């Protein structure tokens, strides 16, 4: 530890604290300052959940968001060591009046990893319109709920996030429920039914909130918790992340936990020069930049003497700090919805299943659902299922959970770590319409159409295939004729794909299919016919939007293309060419992951 530097920093902080505006003890909430001054805590004391100050905020939630009012707030909470701290956040309340029974329900939305730099704070990213979790927040707002988004501890001026310090995060998402009710005119009742929903880091936060609720916030009317992609067993997760695609989460965890437990994880003593540089860099980055920056790096390249993860875990204080984050030591007294992606490459499935078992053994009410995809996709695919489950809790419907399951334990289908970051879209549902311009008619692909692809975010390569069953479509040519059409994949769907530092997904590629008229007739009387476009039709598949589109159902490719002339249509080749070929044919392809299953 660099003691002179530490002492100097302490002196500076003390001087800064003296210079801060002082608020009366237990003061009534006041309007906080504009700009970044809002993030400098005033000298004040208060109980956990007391509102320090607030201000009206402007959040950019994108298209599809309901009209809403929003506020920033700063409130008292408690860190993982039981010491008071202050936390910032955002409160968003739909403008439309609540139509349900009782007070408007509240969802405390526990965010996933955002990054260690202050600019990554959810409150700042929501204001800038760059928050990657907007899709889930909007989904909750559209259901009519007030949504409270804690920044998590450590995003005030001059501070460092205590990333993955579970108790601190759990406290923060419980306390924001209390604090939000103190904002004048926000219309949030302190008695309102409340839920905590989070994924990844947020899944950890939500699970901790569930475990801590009875002792830390018994006054809250918490009716349910949804926790997905939950890191429950820290040593196991650390081993999975080390040297793998998700290495950045491990590096950030070391910085975050080192900040919360400086005596147990003396980062300055453990890090070599490269490690010190990595730490300084990590503190300047948000989640997606960090993800690619240290992808596949091993912790041993950052430690003094190149100590491996296993060696670090033999240091008792390090081991103790990490295992303190392990979940499952307490009963959860409210219904809990757990969910996980079977192909999750960052947070292992098995340790979340083990957590379910631990909770079930403590007679918690647990529902576990298994999603087919990887980490990021699952985060956003789950939203409607989570909100449906939470809606039932808000409406007072009972749930038995599924602690007793006769199904075999699911095994991970994650891509192997340590290589390129590949998001696999396996047998994704393809919902598509292809317009026939002249006939003024759409061809709708059958329900079992699928798209399977590997999107290699590292190599920036998209490579996939379409699968479209033969189907019957009545064309507006000669009624009442049934025409059996095949949209037959002609070659692989290929292109480029990338994920930028702001979490913006870009896809540029082309799908190729033949449009075939296989037969025509009436009912069972079908006469084979070999009519098809003389060349494959090229469908550009271009997309630019938030990465949440991968799971939220918003991954849609639209455009116009040109159909070549027809061939093998016998005596009527020219007629079919006139009716079906030419430019200006509109199409829309939407791809979504397969539905989850209960386990």
């Amino acid at each position, binding site marked *: 530890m660099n003691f002179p530097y530490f002492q100097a920093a302490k002196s500076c902080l003390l001087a800064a604290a003296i210079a801060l505006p002082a608020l009366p003890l237990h003061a009534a909430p006041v309007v906080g300052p504009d700009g970044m001054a809002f993030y400098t805590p005033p000298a004040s004391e208060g109980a956990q959940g007391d509102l320090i100050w607030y201000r009206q905020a402007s959040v950019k939630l994108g298209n599809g968001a309901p009209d809403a009012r929003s506020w920033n707030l700063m409130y008292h909470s408690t860190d993982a060591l039981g010491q008071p701290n202050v936390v910032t956040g955002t409160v968003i309340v739909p403008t439309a009046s609540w139509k349900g029974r009782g007070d408007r329900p509240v969802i405390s939305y526990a965010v996933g990893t955002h990054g260690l730099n202050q600019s990554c704070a959810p409150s700042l990213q929501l204001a800038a319109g760059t928050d990657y979790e907007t899709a889930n927040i909007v989904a909750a707002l559209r259901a009519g709920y007030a949504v409270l988004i804690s920044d998590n501890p450590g995003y005030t001026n001059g501070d460092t996030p205590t990333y993955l310090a579970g108790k601190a995060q759990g406290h923060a998402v419980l306390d924001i429920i209390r604090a939000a009710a103190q904002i004048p005119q926000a219309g949030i009742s302190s008695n309102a039914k409340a839920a905590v929903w989070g994924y990844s880091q947020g899944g950890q936060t939500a699970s901790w909130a569930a475990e801590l609720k009875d002792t830390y916030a018994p006054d809250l009317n918490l009716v349910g918790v949804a926790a997905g992609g939950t890191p429950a067993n820290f040593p196991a997760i650390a081993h999975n992340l080390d040297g793998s695609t998700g290495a950045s989460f491990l590096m950030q965890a070391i910085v975050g936990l080192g900040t919360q437990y400086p005596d147990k994880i003396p980062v300055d003593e453990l890090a070599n020069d490269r490690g010190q540089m990595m730490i300084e860099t990590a503190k300047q980055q948000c989640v997606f930049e960090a993800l690619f920056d240290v992808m596949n790096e091993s912790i041993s390249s950052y430690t003094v003497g190149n100590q491996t993860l296993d060696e670090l875990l033999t240091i008792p204080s390090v081991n103790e700090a990490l295992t303190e984050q392990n979940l499952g030591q307490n009963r959860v007294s409210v219904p809990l919805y757990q969910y996980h992606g079977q192909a999750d490459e960052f947070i292992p499935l098995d340790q979340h299943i083990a957590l379910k078992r631990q909770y079930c053994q403590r007679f918690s009410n647990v529902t576990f659902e298994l999603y087919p995809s990887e980490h990021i996709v699952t985060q956003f695919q789950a939203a409607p299922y989570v909100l449906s489950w939470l809606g039932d809790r808000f409406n007072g419907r009972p749930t038995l959970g599924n602690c007793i399951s006769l199904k075999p334990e699911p095994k991970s289908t994650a891509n192997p770590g340590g290589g390129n970051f590949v998001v696999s879209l396996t047998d994704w549902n393809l919902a598509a319409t292809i317009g026939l311009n002249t006939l003024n008619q759409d061809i709708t692909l059958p329900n079992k159409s699928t798209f399977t692809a590997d999107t290699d975010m590292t190599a920036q390569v998209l490579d996939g295939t379409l699968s479209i069953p033969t189907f019957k479509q009545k064309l507006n040519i000669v009624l009442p004729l049934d025409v059996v059409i095949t949209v037959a994949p002609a070659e692989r769907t290929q292109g480029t794909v990338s994920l930028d530092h702001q979490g913006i997904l870009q896809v540029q590629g082309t799908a190729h299919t033949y449009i075939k008229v296989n037969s*025509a007739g009436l009912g069972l*009387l079908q006469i084979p*016919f070999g009519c098809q476009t003389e060349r494959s039709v090229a469908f550009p598949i271009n997309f630019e939007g938030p990465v949440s589109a991968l799971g939220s159902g918003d991954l849609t490719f639209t455009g116009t293309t040109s159909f070549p002339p027809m061939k093998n249509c016998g005596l009527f080749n020219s007629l079919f060419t*006139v009716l079906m070929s030419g*430019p200006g044919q509109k199409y829309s392809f939407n791809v979504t992951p397969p539905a989850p299953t209960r386990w």
Partner: protein
Amino acid sequence: MKRSIWLAGGLVVAVAAGLMLWEQEPQAGGGRETSAGGGSQPMENLGEMDPEQLAAEQLAANRAVLEEIGEAPFEGPITERPAFVSHLEWQVLKNVAQQHPNPEQEMTRLVNHLRFAKQWDLWQETDPQDVTRHRALAEQLLEEIPSRVSNQELDPAYAQQMQQTLLTALIPDAGERRQRAAKEAARIGVQFRVEGGS
């Protein structure tokens, strides 16, 4: 093989025609009705025709497009069935045009497009040794390609491919062909530099 495909196609549409005419009242032909050769039948009798008769009529209509060489595309409303449009095609095109906000204009476009498509199909089937027919069809197609592009029936890239194919058959000299290709491409809004041209 090719003959069997043709017959299958004919059979399919013959069945379709039969079904269609079973359900539809015969329509009185308005204005001039152009005969489509020996297989032509009045609409009222189409439903009674067997598949071979329908195929024969269709074949005759396809061949009748030769008579259109040198003729300008149709303009204005088409009230009479041209000979190169079979009864069945006429009915299909009318059905399709009726779905359009401007049926008369759409019918004219469809008939002109059908004429072009038949001439293209016929040109591809014509023996290049039949120089007169082959050249005449090629020139006619080249003349009409810009109209088909402006009517959104061909995209410029494919239209340019067609031009290249036609010119390759039409002009043996590479330099002369490049000059003509540049001119034809310009007519569909595609510009390219001619290298080695005089």
